[in-house]
């Protein structure tokens, strides 16, 4: 039995993908040089998307293996979540990461998990990915913790509690209102 070289190493993640129902990028993050160019990345995303498109990964996390990678995935509304690990990775560790990611996203988007909502809160999506994996190492797998870290939006201790916050809140509200009226 061939023994993979990295089997004593830590569980590592090769990439995390967040695609929409057409297979286009919402937010992706790669942690290895296995896909060196944007073209290679897109090709990988395309083939993962096509391979998993017809499966039903809504109630349970699904799994597929190809090109010596293990990919666990889950679909929520029109968002497709993927976590890729190496051939030898513990499938359940990947599953834990995916679960953490989807839980955190669900919390951050207050249950409205869909592509539009994700794009409108893209900053949170990026922060979320940043809090789950650091250069391939698993940082945190608890969805609540991840969402908690992303959502700290108050001023830091040094800042005066000025009117700025209130005006900002108003601005946010106004923006949301105009956006919904325009549609």
């Amino acid at each position, binding site marked *: *039995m061939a*023994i993979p070289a990295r089997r*004593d190493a*830590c*569980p590592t993640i090769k990439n995390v993908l967040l695609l*929409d*129902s*057409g297979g286009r*990028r919402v937010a*992706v993050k790669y942690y290895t040089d296995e896909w060196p160019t*944007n073209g290679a*990345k897109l090709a990988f995303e395309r083939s993962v998307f096509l391979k998993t498109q017809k499966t039903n990964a809504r109630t*349970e*996390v*699904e*799994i*597929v*293996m*190809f090109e010596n990678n293990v990919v*666990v995935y889950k679909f929520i*509304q*029109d968002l497709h979540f993927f976590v890729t690990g190496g051939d030898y990775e*513990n*499938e*359940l*560790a990947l*599953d*834990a990461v995916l679960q953490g990611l989807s839980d955190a996203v669900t919390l951050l988007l207050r249950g*409205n998990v*869909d*592509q*539009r*909502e994700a*794009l*409108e809160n*893209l*900053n949170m999506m*990026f*922060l979320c990915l*940043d809090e789950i994996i*650091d*250069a391939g*190492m*698993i*940082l*945190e*797998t608890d969805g609540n913790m991840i969402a908690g*870290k992303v959502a*700290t*939006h*108050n*001023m*830091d*201790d*040094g*800042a005066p509690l000025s009117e700025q916050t209130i005006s*900002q809140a108003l601005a*946010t509200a106004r923006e949301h209102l105009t956006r*919904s009226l325009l*549609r």
Partner: protein
Amino acid sequence: MAQFVKKDDDRDEEAEYSPFLGIEKGAVLQDARVFNDPQLDSRRCSQVITKLLYLLNQGETFTKVEATEVFFAVTKLFQSKDIGLRRMVYLIIKELSPSSDEVIIVTSSLMKDMNSKTDVYRANAIRVLCRITDGTLLTQIERYLKQAIVDKNPVVASAALVSGIHLLQTNPEIVKRWSNEVQEAVQSRAALVQFHALALLHQIRQNDRLAVSKLVTSLTRGTVRSPLAQCLLIRYASQVIRESSMNNQSGDRPFYDYLEGCLRHKAEMVIFEAARAITELNGVTSRELTPAITVLQLFLSSSKPVLRFAAVRTLNKVAMTHPMAVTNCNIDMESLISDQNRSIATLAITSLLKTGNESGVDRLMKQITNFMSDIADEFKIVVVDAIRSLCLKFPLKYRSLMNFLSNILREEGGFEYKKAIVDSIVILIRDIPDAKESGLLHLCEFIEDCEFTYLSTQILHFLGVEGPKTSDPSKYIRYIYNRVILENATVRASAVSTLAKFGAMVDSLKPRIFILLRRCLYDNDDEVRDRATLYLNTLGGDGSVVETEKDVKDFLFGSLDIPLVNLETSLKNYEPTEEHFDISSVPKEVKSQPLAEKKSAGKKPTALGAPPAAPTSTVDAYEKLLSSIPEFSTFGQLFKSSAPVELTEAETEYAVNVVKHIFDKHVVFQYNCTNTIPEQLLENVVVVVDASEAEEFAEVATKPLKALPYDTPGQTFVAFEKPEGVPAVGRFSNVLKFIVKEVDPSTGEAEEDGVEDEYQLEDSEIVAADYMLKVGVSNFRNAWESLGPDFERIDEYGLGPRESLSEAVNAVVNLLGMQPCEGTEVVAANSRSHSCLLSGVYIGNVKVLVRLSFGVDSSKEVAMKLAVRSEDESVSDAIHEIVAN
């Protein structure tokens, strides 16, 4: 927002909703000017950063200048106190990966954040700083990082530890100084801190076996909180087990109890990791396996696909080595054949095929038939391969398996899939004689409706070789001639060749084949016409083209013994003159990679990629090569060719390896030389061999290599005579001699004058094993009994202290150069005695069987009993002499 949730797959409409529609790099870079505003609008800045990140994430790239500009603008944002904005600043700095002189600008801001009161700042600043920093800066912040590792806030500690893991790759000496702090963090109460600390500590100490062992010992007794950390510990424990089993001859496996205990952990991740670790232990016993298999079996019926997949994948691997251990799970596996997840279903099927017994085959095939229609080609190929090996395992079941293969051959499928099936059928036809007729008919039916020219021609060729040998060759003619009528020119041409082969082999069919071939004379493709004309004339036997029947068969079935590349160059160089092109003038020497070239050098690919053909073709290739050299053609039958032995270190000026060819009365050294210097051309390359340490050998011939240009391997030969049938041994020292000429790299032309030079090579040796062919026997006991005790020689030897039993076994096996049978070369870990069965053919074609019994005592002294049986008394003695020396 709910009213906008729309599951519409229409791209255009959906794209309209994107807040980033029509986003342009130029415009966003303009927007980045807001970072310079004296009154920062943190919300707007945050949005601009998000846009920049969006662009980068979509694969957009910034030029160096653009990136620098953005980076400098972003550094201004450290003035803002807004946490959200600061987080985005951290992100974009990481994405821009600034150069070292740019890093200096943000260092102080980040260091300030690292010591801030806000934990979010500290954790993130550490990660950013460690990502962009270099060695010099690291020494400045080292103090803070050490503090952070033991910080009471777990997020901060984790950030520092994870950064440490990354920094260990680039600055190991610095990170190694932190081990006290890391050690403290391993005891942390926070689950993930413990995980990260354990990972880092192990990486710091990974080259120190004792330290790793100590770490594992202390932690397996203590408490490990997070499942991830527990998984790590399991991996480290199995590493310790692997390394210790090599030294530890007796006693129980250390940490096995720990692994088994983990099977009862509450997290599935840990249970699975432990079960997998147990299945992968070296020489795992069935008693050790049982608890692991039991938990994996439970996972098989889990509702979670991930768990089922993990379990079935592991069991599939176990099935390769311990099929009996997995049979208990077969009922659960069978239910997985209908699993929604096709990866799981395929793994289940292939495991079943590996573990199944003969009686279950038919039932299994029935289930698989339903399954095949709804999986992708790549999975089907896996199944086809598994079925092929099953069929070779149970040859009696060929009927149902062959039927299955022919059924799936008729169904839809891509080229790779069809090729896998055809290859399998071909292999079965070769290995199971009973399957030949039905297999050939299946192939015939397949080519009646085959869309792949490659497969059609391959099958036609195979039919031509195998078809005439069947009981009723005439029944294939119809299928073959149909190809001539219906197919494209390539297939028609190969059908014509196949017809000719039938004509040559089966006299009764000859007249009818003639009629068919004559019809082909009017084909509209010239290749088809040419072939038909050629074959009509050769088979016609009027003596004008070929003289005897043997020539005809040689011509039809023999393969071209000239490398195609050489033929091609010769044909290109040939200028149409009065003189005819003479095929014997084409050099037969193989230019590069003798084996690979030779294999593909046939007139057309002779085998359908069937593995059984490979070993013979190696010998064939050498034999042809040697017999093509006049000096060596009288040496008779080649007995054995050794594997190439390197005579130079890797990456030297000239790379030389030697292949030893053993004949009855001669030994030929084939030196494969490669010139690795582009500026040199070597001429008159010879190897001067000093055989003073090989008394029984006398040099009889050398064949120099005329020219050795850069990067084009060539061969030179030296032949020795030795007493007939005697396994003479000796050591030869080699010197490479040549004339070196400078080559102008720009024109590629060599200078006129060369300089003589020589190059010392390593010594080569002829050892006893060179006179032994590795030939396996399928049933050692039968072979042993049939040889009888007449020429049995038994003796005992002390092998002295050895590192391990398996090392001793390998040494003896290599010394004798014989084929280990029935997997007996593998020594179970920790065992104190072992017996090994070997078979081979000794020079003079004498069959030899050897039984070795080894024993080891506490001081690692290895004793061996050697029993030899052969067809010749003197050979049995010779084997003992080999060992005695």
